[in-house]
């Protein structure tokens, strides 16, 4: 009977949260979190309760007004329908992905917490509720994965602490005098990561108690890309947003890794909301993979198949969401590198499945662009070159060839899409500087676009003839894209004019001249 108490506590808290306001509602939210922590303690071990510290602190900091907000009939209906649907989906997933021999209502509580967060995020009554929803989603992702793949108390507490990041993204900016030094520090760290990856000794992982980070070549490269993008392209004062991304790619514990990615998405969507729903759906899809991995032994082998499909689908959805803003600058490379790391364990038959999905995604990207133009000729159209590069990126990631060219092409395209093809601020370049910037953003050698796209075609052909031909068609389209796009680049928040504006062109030319050095960093 005691095993059902967490679920009971959760539902009581849920009803209280929906039916009250102010401190009572805050207490109810914390009650729901306590229910999830209790469930986690029973499912895994009591040490996992440390996970709850972060989300509870975040909920305490998210003070709400005591006055109830007026709600219309339509709004109320929508909210009720959303939470019921979310809870049903959560129950279904909990039933399909059971943790051990535990009762369904016990193992479902972390899933219910995620459903609550998703409902508040999808149909918020006000902005704080939306933020609270993001906090709960990040916390729930950590809890669900911790239940499937247990970790020590330090890792659990760090995973839970990721729930504080959405709050920080909403409310905290670096003070003005610290912004430039912080950016420069991030750049210096990126250079260190590149040097260590290129010529340094091979370091497997760094361990502190039960918390460990992996610093192999590919991860160091991912860290360098994220730090450089964070330093040069994030909104002013939000340069720190690169750090959850770094944690996401380097943490070895899946619970912490995916929670950090969720936190990064939350920060990104707090800053710019374009594509946020798709990004969260992609996160949910990708977040299923460690859970599937955790429960794979206890269910049928079809979970491995679903895992590959979830990886592919999540990647496609994330690419579709990454049109602009921090999602594109930080979330896309972080997710992409995570998928590349996860691909290492996918067996060949399932890799073909993933390649199919990537190819479908590439076709979808182009078809969506054409369709949007056919539906509304006068409306804003996507940047054709970006869409084609995204499609090539999907093919490159899915290629996983023995020569490592797919991974290299993907890394180059991440740099291109996340760092180079972003309009930091409309600048008037002239003379040699203008020519250098034009070259850096062009399809000509030695720009990174040329290197990434060419290698993507080669890698795709290594995977299969169909992928290779599709990649060649995309490359042909890429040559024609400037006719349609002109000089359009993805918009990004304006930043003050500084030497950091040279980061993008310099990176483009450096990576385009010597992609073989990046291949060496990948150490494949």
């Amino acid at each position, binding site marked *: 009977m005691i095993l059902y108490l967490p679920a009971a506590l959760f539902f009581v808290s849920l009803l209280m949260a929906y039916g009250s306001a102010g401190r009572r509602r805050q207490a109810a939210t914390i009650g729901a979190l306590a229910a999830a922590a209790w469930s986690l303690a029973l499912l895994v071990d009591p040490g996992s309760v440390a996970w709850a510290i972060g989300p509870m602190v975040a909920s305490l900091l998210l003070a709400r007004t005591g006055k109830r907000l007026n709600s219309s009939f339509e709004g109320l209906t929508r909210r009720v329908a959303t939470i019921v649907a979310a809870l049903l989906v959560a129950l279904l997933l909990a039933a399909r992905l059971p943790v051990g021999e535990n009762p369904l209502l016990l193992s479902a509580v972390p899933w219910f917490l995620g459903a609550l967060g998703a409902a508040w995020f999808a149909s918020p009554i006000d902005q704080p509720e939306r933020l609270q929803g993001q906090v709960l989603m990040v916390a729930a992702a950590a809890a669900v994965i911790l239940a499937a793949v247990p970790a020590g108390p330090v890792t659990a507490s760090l995973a839970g602490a990721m729930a504080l990041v959405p709050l920080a993204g909403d409310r905290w900016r670096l003070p003005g005098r610290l912004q430039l030094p912080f950016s420069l520090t991030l750049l210096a760290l990126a250079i260190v990561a590149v040097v260590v990856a290129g010529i340094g000794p091979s370091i497997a992982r760094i361990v502190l108690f039960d918390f460990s980070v992996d610093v192999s070549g590919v991860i160091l490269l991912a860290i360098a890309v994220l730090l450089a993008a964070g330093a040069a392209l994030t909104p002013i004062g939000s340069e720190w947003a690169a750090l959850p991304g770094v944690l996401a790619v380097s943490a070895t514990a899946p619970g912490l890794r995916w929670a950090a990615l969720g936190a990064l998405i939350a920060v990104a969507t707090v800053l710019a909301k374009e594509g946020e729903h798709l990004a969260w759906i992609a996160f949910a899809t990708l977040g299923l993979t460690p859970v599937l991995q955790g429960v794979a032994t206890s269910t049928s082998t079809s979970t491995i*198949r*679903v895992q590959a*499909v979830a990886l*592919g*689908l999540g990647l496609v959805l994330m690419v579709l969401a990454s049109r602009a803003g921090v999602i594109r600058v930080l979330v896309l490379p972080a997710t992409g590198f995570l998928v590349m790391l996860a691909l290492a364990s996918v067996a060949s038959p399932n890799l073909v*499945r993933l390649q*199919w*999905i990537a190819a*479908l*995604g590439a076709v*979808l990207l182009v*078809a*969506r662009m054409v*369709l*949007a133009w*056919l*539906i509304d*000729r006068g409306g804003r159209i996507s940047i054709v070159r970006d869409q084609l590069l995204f499609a090539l990126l999907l093919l490159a990631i899915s290629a996983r060839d023995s*020569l*490592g*060219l797919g991974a*290299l092409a993907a890394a180059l395209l991440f740099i291109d899409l996340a760092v180079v093809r972003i309009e930091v601020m409309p600048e008037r370049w002239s003379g040699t500087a203008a*020519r250098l910037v*034009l*070259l850096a953003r*062009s*399809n*000509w*050698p030695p720009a990174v676009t*040329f*290197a990434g796209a*060419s*290698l993507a*075609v*080669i890698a795709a*052909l*290594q995977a299969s003839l169909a992928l*290779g031909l599709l990649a*060649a068609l995309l*490359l*042909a389209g890429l*040559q*024609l894209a*400037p*006719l349609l796009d*002109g*000089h359009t680049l993805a918009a990004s928040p304006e930043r003050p004019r500084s030497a950091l504006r040279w980061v993008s062109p310099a990176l483009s030319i450096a990576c385009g*001249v*010597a*992609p*073989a*050095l990046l*291949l060496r960093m990948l150490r494949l």
Partner: protein
Amino acid sequence: MPLAAQALLPFLALLGAAAIAQRRPRRASNGWIAVAATGVAGIIALVELLRLAPGEHVDVPYLTTFPYADLAIRLDGLSLAFATVTLITAALLMLARLRLRGDRRDPWISWLLTAAAACAVIFAHNLLLLYIALQLLTLAWSGALDETSRRRRGLRLSVQVADIGLLLAAASAIQSVGTSAFSGVPSDTFGLPTFLLVLLPVVVRVAAVALTTGGPPAAVAFEPAIVWLAPAGYLLMRMLALMGGRLPDRPTAVVLFAAATLAALAMAGLALVERSGAHRVALLLVAHAALALALSTGADPLMTVACTWLWLLLVPLAGVASVRAAAGSAPEILTPLNLAMIPGSTAFVGLWLGGLALNARGLLFGTIPVAVAVALSAIAALGRVARPRSLHLDPPTFWAAGLLLIAAFPVVVMDHLVVPAAATVRLVPTGTIVASPFGIIAGGRPWPALVVSLVVVLLLGLAAWRLGLKAPTLPSLKGRGKIKAPTLPALPTVPPWGRFVLWGAFAVAVYNVLTRP
């Protein structure tokens, strides 16, 4: 001097001259510097070629910056022969441009960079590097760093898209044998699809010769010889070399021979009715290239020598044809003589060799369409030749006369330029061709080149100066019954729910992927 440094000398000469011209814009001496640097680069390539032992090839690696595209130079008979011919042609074009008065444009940096890029194409050590060099060549000749630039956009994009065929060929080689280096690819690596992929950039470049003469005629056009025909010829010959000097199968060879010969016939026929002099020259060059392509389909040494001769000599011929001759000047009659492909011209030597090879294989009837194409070309080229009014000893006169001299004395280029290049493509046994100052002997048949040239010159001279004969010309097709280009119907507007259909289709496809066994 170490070989690694020697191999870089042509590039250093060209890029050094470009740097000097960049630092001192609009100086009169820039042109001379460009001519000297390009000429020196060509001579260096020639010296390297002469020092090369028969069948020898040298790979000079420098860096590995691009995976599977080591920054390395390939020195063999084919690359050095093409580099020599291309660079000397480029130097002659620059010299011709230098002698012009009245044109105040300063093309030297662009031409030097284009020559360096063409040199990079020819010296590239592997297929992937070759693709990169071709992209650089496109960037150099178009100058379109800004990709939205309208200047010759269609042509530039066509070439870029066609070059993807080469990228796929490189990828195919990497997939098959783990490298795209010319030394490491076995001759059976490439099949018919790969050959056709590589043929795509070749065909587009040859077609570009005909398409690029539509605008106002430039006094000296650098592109036909250096940007289009030299890379096209080199690319095809290199591909043949990688395939062991023969096409994948006999049907392919027959179809390609037929297609190329038909193209030559069509081009020569069009040249016959073309009124514009520049267009006519371009069409004749394309006919010449098409015949070279037709002879490239052969699998025996003599045929390989024939097509190598044609491709190599086509580059300086295109060069001299790209220099606008003054009315009544000597080049106005010498250049059409070269383009006519009649006995006494450089092209005819190659065609004669090809004919011998076809005859040896019992395919003499294959020479019939070639002969018709030659006849049409001769009529088109010589039909509007006017008697020269003056004889100025300017570079184009020497150049055109030099080509006729090469036809009269094939020994000048046969032993040290053509045969080494052909021997790189496939083995050419000793004695296949014996050249002497009076002619050549191939397959046991002599070709008295000197005597033939003298007779032809005498006959033509007599015809033009005494009898005032003029070849028949047909009226131009221009302006008659213009073909109305069909207009595409407007694309329909799609309703907004089209998005749901698209996403639904995607969901169904993903479900199928998930459930397939």
